[in-house]
């Protein structure tokens, strides 16, 4: 094996050392229409009444926090922004107190999610084949066996944490297998996920140190794959080419970071929210247990009503847009959850209807950035629910006050104590 000088070990330069920082503003929100923050506890606990209120009276909220940003709440506006890659850039997709330098576009720090046209399609094309429904179906037997293993560990217990002891582990294991990372590194993945997605309001030096830890880990994995190439996505990315050229080291590790982070938190949240709903809605739980064939339909409704993922964009140029004056580099908090509860788009938008037949939800986004891992997420969510319902007869919230939700753009339960009436 010849050395690959793209990945010579060095203290990584993270993009966070460049770009523009804004003042960190935290604390209670005065008015959600003019001062919103997706990082305050009220939003984490229950964002839907806030979004519903804004949709009626606003409908595009503003904030001076994070250096300025906008929150559209109608489906129509969210869709228009998702489709408009001319006016809205993906060069940053996590709304916080740091904007990457504009010359990072059109590639961005974690292609293809951070990429704009025309580069985007090339970075995306590299990965599509590994994430088709057909390719993902090969992961299903191992995923199902792993879900059973997790439930085997509940034997003899009345109360389990379905977020920490079940939902979390399923996407971690599957993505570790696909990337070819050691399965026992799961606890580190959790730390990386929290660093990137929840540590938004930490001081810059803490953010930089945490990002360095993630990229150091990825470089170790890359080097292990250079020494021992194998049939997984990491070895594939190391060998992949765009325009006849090998990818840069930043592209390889950026894409790995994307798959690791985006593959874990999101599905962990979707599984957790679905179990949370079923634990507090006995009629739905009983119906799904009796009709497992309804799981694929019901899970689309859970994805609509409890969509875990909110994206972000940056406004490219000053403009008047749908009634508001946006400035270059203003954030857009692109809330697919808010779009999914817009009564103009969905009948009974605020209700969970587990046999909803018409469900054109946007949980996986719209347009060119449609979630690359949507087929993986759907397989994991379906299998996780099928195995849980098959193995656990009745379950309820052990203590509704002990349920804790994640902060930031990915929303799902991080503590979910459930009381099991009977497990097998």
């Amino acid at each position, binding site marked *: 094996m010849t050395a690959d000088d793209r990945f010579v070990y060095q203290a990584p330069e993270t993009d966070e050392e460049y770009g523009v920082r804004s003042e960190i503003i935290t604390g209670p929100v005065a008015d959600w229409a003019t001062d919103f923050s997706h990082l305050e506890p009220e939003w984490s606990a229950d964002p839907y009444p806030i979004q519903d209120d804004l949709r009626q009276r606003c409908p595009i909220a503003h904030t001076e926090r994070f250096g300025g940003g906008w929150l559209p709440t109608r489906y129509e506006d969210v869709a228009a922004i998702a489709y408009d890659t001319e006016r809205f850039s993906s060069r940053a997709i996590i709304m916080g107190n740091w904007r990457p330098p504009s010359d990072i576009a059109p590639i961005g720090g974690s292609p293809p999610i951070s990429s704009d046209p025309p580069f985007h399609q090339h970075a995306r094309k590299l990965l599509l084949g590994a994430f088709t*429904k057909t390719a993902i179906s090969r992961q299903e037997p191992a995923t199902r066996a792993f879900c059973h293993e997790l439930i085997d560990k509940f034997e003899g217990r009345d109360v389990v944490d379905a977020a920490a002891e079940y939902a979390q582990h399923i996407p971690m294991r599957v993505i570790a297998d696909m990337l070819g990372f050691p399965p026992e590194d799961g606890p580190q993945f959790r730390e990386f996920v929290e660093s990137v997605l929840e540590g938004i309001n930490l001081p810059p030096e803490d953010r930089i140190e945490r990002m360095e830890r993630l990229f150091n880990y990825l470089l170790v994995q890359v080097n292990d794959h250079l020494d021992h190439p194998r049939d997984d996505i990491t070895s594939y990315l190391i060998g992949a080419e765009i325009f006849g050229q090998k990818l840069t080291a930043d592209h390889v590790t950026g894409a790995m970071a994307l798959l690791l982070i985006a593959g874990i938190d999101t599905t962990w949240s979707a599984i957790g929210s679905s179990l949370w709903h079923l634990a507090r809605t006995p009629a739905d739980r009983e119906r799904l247990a009796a009709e497992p064939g309804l799981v694929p339909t019901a899970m689309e409704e859970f994805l609509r009503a409890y969509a875990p993922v909110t994206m972000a964009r940056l406004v490219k140029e000053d403009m008047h847009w749908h009634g508001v004056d946006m400035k270059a580099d203003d954030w857009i908090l692109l809330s697919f959850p808010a779009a999914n509860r817009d009564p103009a788009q969905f009948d009974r938008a605020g209700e969970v209807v587990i046999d909803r037949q018409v469900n054109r939800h946007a949980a996986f986004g719209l347009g060119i950035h449609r979630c690359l891992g949507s087929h993986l997420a759907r397989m994991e969510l379906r299998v996780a629910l099928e195995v849980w319902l098959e193995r656990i007869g009745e379950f309820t919230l052990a203590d509704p006050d002990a349920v804790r939700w994640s902060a930031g753009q990915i929303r799902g339960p991080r503590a979910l104590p459930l009381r099991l009436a009977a497990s097998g």
Partner: protein
Amino acid sequence: MKVQIDPERCQGHGRCYDLAPSLFGDDEEGYGQVLGDGMVSPEQEREARLAVVNCPEHAIEVI
């Protein structure tokens, strides 16, 4: 009745081949493809309509 996919709109969500697997399949990149000539038999009409109304990108047309 016949179905077709607008490739300019399709983003590979896969709702069509999930909901109407007798009419749609995925290509090697996950984009939806009409199987055969796209003609919908009376027994397939319900599936076809489900695919149409659940495509997030409005990419499926019935002609």
